[in-house]
């Protein structure tokens, strides 16, 4: 009997080839990551558990990404002080301070590589599965235990195979694939499961597109999301393909179910306010009024996303009174966007460009919404009050739909804005 991708990755780490779905396996992750917002609690739990040191500080990465620059005096600064304690007292040396969003940098800098198990204190840790890495989130109490012991239990999940055929049409993006998928599975349809992407359509996608899909797969409740490793994965990580070509789906592996999508047939999709799984074909939202457009987040802040937006905005002005906030996901993306002239395009179009960070997606300044305001965002969640006041409304879309809608001042399909 063959294995699913998640089984292969757990077998590689644990050395136990007899595992099957439902088994509890103790693994020793290759990398663990924690963040500024949880640093005070990680330190507190280490103390309460009486761990006076981290067993393998060289496996840990610490990100100061949610809170820089500081938003709340005396509160955010407390978190940063505790993060510094994780460095100075506990010896975590790999620190990313103000360099952008953790989930982007984790793969951009090669902290999360193919074949690894990576555990982090954030739900969107599933992102790195785009590079064939089993990555999933935990809370800060469990992170403290992991730092102290280098051990964590995982239940071997059932897996759903997502077979992608064909190729995306122009103006349709990876975000539309994952919106459609979350809409079909619903917010709990991937609960405790591994979502595994295969087929020619999967291999046709760029690494950025794969990361977008694995990032948002979490919104269907997935434990992890995985793409097979191929020549694109090898090139991205500058690794020989024959070192990672075992990260492929076995023909005879047992999947709980198989979903099939023909990318040629896919249209842009949008999630309506207050429901990540309330997903519709774009035609169901055309003409809806908007006050703000947000481009960015760990879902859609890559250089490819910036390129899509720049192409649509080039030489045009966004709608009067509309607010548009663009946040490149990392300093690497930011610098490249400057070099290619995208930032100038954004500014000439009337958008505001903010520093690489989680930004308003995580409820941080700037651009938070007031009661009655409506936004289109390229991020991953539209929960009540997440991006501002309780009475605000957020649609989730691709960067193409969001940028075109910024020009129109209402929701439109990208192709209706003449390039």
């Amino acid at each position, binding site marked *: 009997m063959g294995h699913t991708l998640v089984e292969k990755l757990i077998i590689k780490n644990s050395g136990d080839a007899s595992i099957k779905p439902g088994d509890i396996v103790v693994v020793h992750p290759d990398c663990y990551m924690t963040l500024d917002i949880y640093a005070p609690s990680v330190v507190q739990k280490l103390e309460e558990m009486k761990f006076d040191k981290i067993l393998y500080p060289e496996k840990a990465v610490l990100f100061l990404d949610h809170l820089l620059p500081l938003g709340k005096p005396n*509160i955010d600064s407390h978190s940063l002080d505790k993060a510094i304690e994780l460095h100075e007292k506990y010896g975590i040396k790999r620190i990313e301070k103000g360099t952008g969003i953790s989930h982007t940098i984790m793969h951009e800098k090669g902290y999360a590589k193919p074949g690894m198990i990576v555990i982090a204190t954030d739900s969107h840790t599933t992102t790195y599965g785009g590079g064939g890495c089993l990555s999933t989130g935990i*809370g800060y109490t469990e992170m403290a235990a992991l730092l102290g012991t280098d051990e964590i239990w995982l239940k071997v999940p059932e897996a759903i195979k997502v077979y992608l055929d064909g190729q995306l049409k122009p103006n349709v993006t990876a975000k539309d694939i994952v919106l459609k998928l979350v809409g079909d599975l619903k917010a709990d349809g991937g609960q405790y499961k591994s979502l595994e992407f295969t087929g020619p359509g999967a291999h046709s996608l760029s690494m950025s597109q794969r990361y977008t899909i694995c990032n948002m797969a979490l919104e269907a409740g997935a434990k992890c999301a995985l793409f097979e490793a191929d020549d694109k994965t090898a090139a991205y990580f500058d690794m020989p393909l024959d070192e990672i070509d075992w990260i492929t789906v076995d023909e005879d592996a047992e999947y709980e179910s198989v979903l099939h999508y023909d990318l040629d047939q896919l249209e842009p999709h949008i999630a309506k306010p207050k429901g990540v799984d309330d997903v519709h074909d774009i035609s169901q939202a055309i003409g809806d009024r908007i006050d703000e457009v947000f481009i960015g987040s760990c879902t859609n802040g890559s250089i490819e996303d910036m390129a899509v937006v720049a192409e649509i905005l080039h030489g045009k002005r966004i709608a009067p009174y509309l607010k548009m906030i663009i946040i490149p996901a990392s300093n690497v993306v930011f610098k490249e966007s400057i070099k290619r002239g995208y930032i100038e395009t954004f500014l000439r179009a009337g958008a505001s460009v903010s520093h690489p960070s989680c930004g308003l997606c*995580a409820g941080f300044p700037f651009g938070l919404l007031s009661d009655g305001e409506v936004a289109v965002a390229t991020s991953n969640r539209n929960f009540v009050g997440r991006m501002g006041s309780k009475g605000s409304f957020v649609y989730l879309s691709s960067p193409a739909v969001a940028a075109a809608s910024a020009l129109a001042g209402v929701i439109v399909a990208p192709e209706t804005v003449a390039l």
Partner: protein
Amino acid sequence: MSAIATGRIWHLPDDVDTDVILAVKHFLNTAEERSQHCLENLVPNFAKEVKQGDVIVAGKNFGCGSSREYAPEAIYTSGVTCIVAKSFSRLFYRNAVNIGISLVENADIQAHCADGDAIQVDYENRTIETNGKVYKMPRFPRHLEEISRVGGLVNYHRQRNELAEEGAN
């Protein structure tokens, strides 16, 4: 925690996410401060009126969304030590068990009770009683039972570390 807890039901819908349980803007310095904003955008009177022994009874996918442990912590600090739901999100489940909350996956209870109904949880005999009906509390899987038995993951590791320290002396 006493063996039998009595309180009222807070009846919640499907897909209650962790942003609604505790928004990022309420990531304040202490658990007490954070818990005062628990469920603020969904049940505005929750934090003010919740009492020790109350039970949340929810639909499917309770605690979906973020990994933030401040969500179960805010519920626990408010005095709710037992949550009944049709299903829990993976992250919420792990986090809640780790901080010592009793989770009960049950498909029936939610449909047979209303907000404000009285409920009694018998932790020793592992039963829940509401509206004249008694429901069994299922056991955790074995690996989690020990964590749950000692009141969470902090106690679990502290006890092990203290034993190791005594052994070394």
